[in-house]
């Protein structure tokens, strides 16, 4: 999962701690100490932060579903205002809107069996009562949608809109995994062009998926990303292709690339998490992407590749194929960014199924660097 919002201007500032960009936001420029569950909470000072979930689930009667639920926290001005300004406004009376944050979320269900796709988005100014993220644990909520760590240490996911809903409990199997040393995940060569990025790559998930008012008891695997940064895309990066895969052999794979204006790879990265074993990380030279087939969105005109052949050095070559066409998210209420968020199946080159996963393709309707 990559940035959807917030490409602030960037300049080389002094290497004092912590480093900030010219807008005054913190940047991910050096390894940091991580501590969970505290680091599941919000990280003030960074312009953008998100908590991202996808998963492939199956009902008892064999019906397959994919889902996405992502919470975004966008800081409007640098600083932790609610805390900093508590005593500056004539003593008391600090407004709950004072936090200086904008929260938004995207929610999608892919009904793979019936090949139908539902998506929704919502956003509002940060407010402790209805749009906030906890500081020291996982508890993010926005207008009734919520993800939090329950008393058993499991992650709960709740969202509902127009007769479509998820109410899931996810048990951590693998993770958190840091992508890059100290969690720094580079996205380019420029100063601060990176994010702090960790994933819970495998969550054993069960609960209810509701489509058109009909509830389905489901189980399967989910993926969780948490990422925070202040500037990621450079001027010549038009979008990204991102993949999170659960292989049946127990390995979890994350692969992404940032595309240049010619549509080629500008920067790439991959993490393979064996089961058991230490994660292995791979950079641009070791990762290749080969798109195949195209689906063109009738709504946005975006022409998205249907399947990909992904190669990570000698370690992995897989074909990733969208389960069905039309899994395009259009965030009309929250920035008007369009992207493909597709449940995928993973095959080997002979077409034998190896697992499931999700892919996110951005900047295909319009270059993302122009949009943000």
């Amino acid at each position, binding site marked *: 999962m990559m940035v959807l919002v917030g490409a602030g201007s960037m300049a080389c500032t002094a290497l004092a701690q912590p480093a900030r960009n010219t807008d005054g936001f913190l940047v991910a420029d050096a390894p940091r100490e991580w501590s969970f569950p505290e680091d599941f909470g919000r990280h003030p000072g960074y312009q953008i932060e998100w908590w991202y979930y996808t998963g492939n689930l199956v009902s008892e009667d064999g019906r397959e579903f994919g889902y996405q639920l992502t919470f975004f926290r966008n800081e409007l001005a640098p600083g932790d205002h609610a805390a900093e300004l508590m005593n500056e406004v004539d003593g008391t009376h600090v407004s709950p809107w004072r936090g200086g944050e904008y929260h938004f979320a995207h929610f999608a269900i892919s009904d793979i069996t019936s090949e139908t796709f539902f998506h929704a988005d919502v956003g509002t100014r940060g407010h402790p009562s209805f749009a906030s993220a906890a500081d020291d644990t996982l508890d993010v909520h926005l*207008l009734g949608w919520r993800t939090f760590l329950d008393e058993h240490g499991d992650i709960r996911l709740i969202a509902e809109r127009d007769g479509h809903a998820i109410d899931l409990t996810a048990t951590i199997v693998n993770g958190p995994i840091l992508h890059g040393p100290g969690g720094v995940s580079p996205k380019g060569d420029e100063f601060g062009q990176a994010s702090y990025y960790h994933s819970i790559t495998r969550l054993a998930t069960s609960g209810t998926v509701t489509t058109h008012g009909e509830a389905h008891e489901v189980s399967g695997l989910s993926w969780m990303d948490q990422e925070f940064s202040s500037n990621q895309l450079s001027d010549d990066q038009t979008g990204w292709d991102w993949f999170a895969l659960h292989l049946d052999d127990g390995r979890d794979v994350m692969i992404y690339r940032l595309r240049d204006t010619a549509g080629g790879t500008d920067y790439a990265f991959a993490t393979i998490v064996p089961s058991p074993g230490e994660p292995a990380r791979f950079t641009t030279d070791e990762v290749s992407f080969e798109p195949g087939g195209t689906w063109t969105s009738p709504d946005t005109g975006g022409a998205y590749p249907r399947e990909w052949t992904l190669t990570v050095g000698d370690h992995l070559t897989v074909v990733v194929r969208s389960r069905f066409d039309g899994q395009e998210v259009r965030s009309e209420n929250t920035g008007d960014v369009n992207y493909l968020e597709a449940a995928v199946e993973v095959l080997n080159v002979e077409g034998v199924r190896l697992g499931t996963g999700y892919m996110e393709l951005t900047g295909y309707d319009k270059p993302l660097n122009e949009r943000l």
Partner: protein
Amino acid sequence: MSGWPGGRFGLVRGLILGDAKRHPLSLLLTVLGVTLGVAVVVGVDTAVDACTRGFAASVRSIVGDTSHRIEPASGTMADEAFAELRLAMPDLLATPVIDRRVRILPLEGAPEGEPTRLGRIIGLDVLSAADVAADQGIEEALEDASFQSFIAEPGAVVMVKPLAERVGAEVGTRLRVDMGDAVRSVHVVSIIELEPPARSTVTDLMVADIATAQELFSMPGHLDRVDIAPRDDAELEAVRGVLPVGVSVRTLDDAAGAIEELIGAYRLNLLALSFMASFVAVFIVYNATLIGAERRSGTLGTLRCVGMRSVGIAGVFVIEAAVIGLIGAAVGVFAGLWLASGLVELVSATIGDLYTRVNPVEVSLSPVSAAKAAVVGLVSALAGAAAPTVLASRTPPMSAFRATERADRSWAWSMVLALAAVGCLALAWVFVVWPQGSIVGAFAVAGFTATGFALVALPATKVASALASVLAGGHRSGRALPPLLAARGVGRSIGVTGVAVAATALAMAMNIGLLTMVGSFRHAVLTWLDGRYQSDLYIAPALALEHRVPATLSPELIAAVEAHPDVAGPVMPYRHVNIELGGLPALLTATDLRRTLDGGLLQLVDGDTRSALDALDGEPPGAATPVYISQPLAVKLGFRPGDTISLPAPEEPFPAFVAGVYTDFVADRGTVLIDRTVFRAVWHDDGLNAAHVSLEPHARGEGAAARFADVWGAEFPVVVHDHADIRSETKRIFDRTFRITDVLAWLAGLVALFGLGGAVLALAASRTRELATLSALGMSRGQLLARSATEAALLGLTAWVLALIAGSALAWILADVIQYRSFGWSFPLRPAPVSWGVALAFVVAAAVVGGLAPSLLVRKDTLVRGLGDE
């Protein structure tokens, strides 16, 4: 026949234009009469219109595409209500809003005496409002660094250029602003120019982030409203379906139109007064037409002799009246606009005192006002000309040349008019006793009464002349001759003299009626004030007192007041919130009901205190909540003691029973008085708009208010008053409220004076032959003067007596019918002898003018010319 049309046209043209050329003063007076009538109507209409359009502009222009508002039934709404709406309808274009007025204190270092300025702060969430209000240029003004300052820095505001210029602010300037409960600091992060038309109408605005606004107004977690822009009716219906409890959605048209509802009765009263002025104009045209017919009787006779039919004659006078009416209307429009520019400040101040703060827009003529002007001008001219036109057109050709016959025709008319007068007064009475009388019905009462008295003026003049003749005839001396001739002369020319009496009496009656009503009202208000305000000190926000803006007191202030050793017991609290009851705007006032009742602060007109005190004691347990209803509200909604009412409350409608109806002059909207303990629990509102303070005996006395103002005013933006201050402030507001009434009454009087002047001159003109004859027969100048003066005095006294009767009747109608039905206020009438004296002075002035004019005119006439007419 071939020469006829041209010849007849020539005669007709000569009849109109020739007369106008020969008697320009008469024509001028007539046009002026119509002009004044039209000007008063246009002036009042346009001034009120400028105020209501100003209010509408302030409602509309800042919110871009917003078409609806979601507002709480009273007070504020919680942030969570906005969240509920967002959750239910994430696609809806909506922004939370705080919208309040503030008092901007002069910049440090400003010259001594620099006034405070009224400003307006709108707090909104620019992010959710981006699609709603982007067209106002606010977003553009918040680029880059200033956006971050705007969002992140407490007290950051964007200011419109006109306000920045007025207060001398630049980007970065820090201003001290009185929010009502406290003075806080704001700083300007950007100065913007709004797009037209808002650029010219929104000149006092500061825009703040919603967080900043909540902090500035000490209302964290609360909103005034949510502005929304539903894309279609279906989305609007969906909004209605998911509205949180205690809020409602209404269109901006509703919000802008609320002012019309609020000031409806006030506007109607002003309009009625202005129409009164044009009503008097009818008499002027009547006089002028009648006199014109007299003057042109020879020509009319000629026209009839050469075959012109009475319809043709009537046409001449109708055309003449229509032209006069239209010219009067045209000139009246300009005079009205000039008048409006003077009245608009008075009207806006009164609306501010009585209802809500308005910033009037520039005075301009609306098509409706222009149409009204044309109608008023034409109708007053045609109505005034109607009777003389009929008279002139029906004159047989030979009679037209005989003055004596013309004079005698008025007898029959006076009888008809007497009957009509009786009919009018009877109709007025019907409207008085009509059950469920409306405001319009109340004005019908006034209209019929005025018309009745105007009509009765003719037979009354006839009777007065007959009485005077009898009195003068009793003395067989030479000195009795002039009075006798005067008395008979008045009776003989009743068509002219009667109308002069009617016009004069009507003008004086208006003065007497208005002065009596206003004086009685004033006395009633001050008596009520003495009963209601029995504390030693009264504390209210300076913002409320200086700029008539609702504001609350700081809780810290109340704590400081109650902790002061000179203060005896807790303050008497008052909290006012706007509510809607029975579809009407009203005030809900929360106070300590027990102390109010025990202290006898309410003048009950119905109901008792026992049931309320029992209910407050919980006897029987679980008793319903008692409320007291002010008389205006009780009158409008028909509430009586024992009735159950449902008050709009945040969660759900709150039931209460009416324990009594009380006299109240606070607001014509009407007030519901509720115990503050209940109010705080149900409305979750601890605010106070005013506090009444009792002092320990040793601390009372002169200078106490100033002393405590120094103590509390240093820390809080409050004004501390004592009883005398409250009395003088009330008097000031009262007098300002009725200043426009005075202006209108005197304008109507002015119109009548023109009428009287015209009538007297006409009378003199019609008497030149008679005066010449008398002079030729040997009557001295002194005797002629005595005759004229007696004639004028007789007319004046008749008018005065009539005015006393009619004025008293009008005062009663104004107080007991119009005020009661318009505003729900009732009060006992008190005589106003001053108004009688003023009216008498008016009579004396008229007698002097009337006495001198004929004797001046007769000098210029020769015996031959005077007698030649016969």
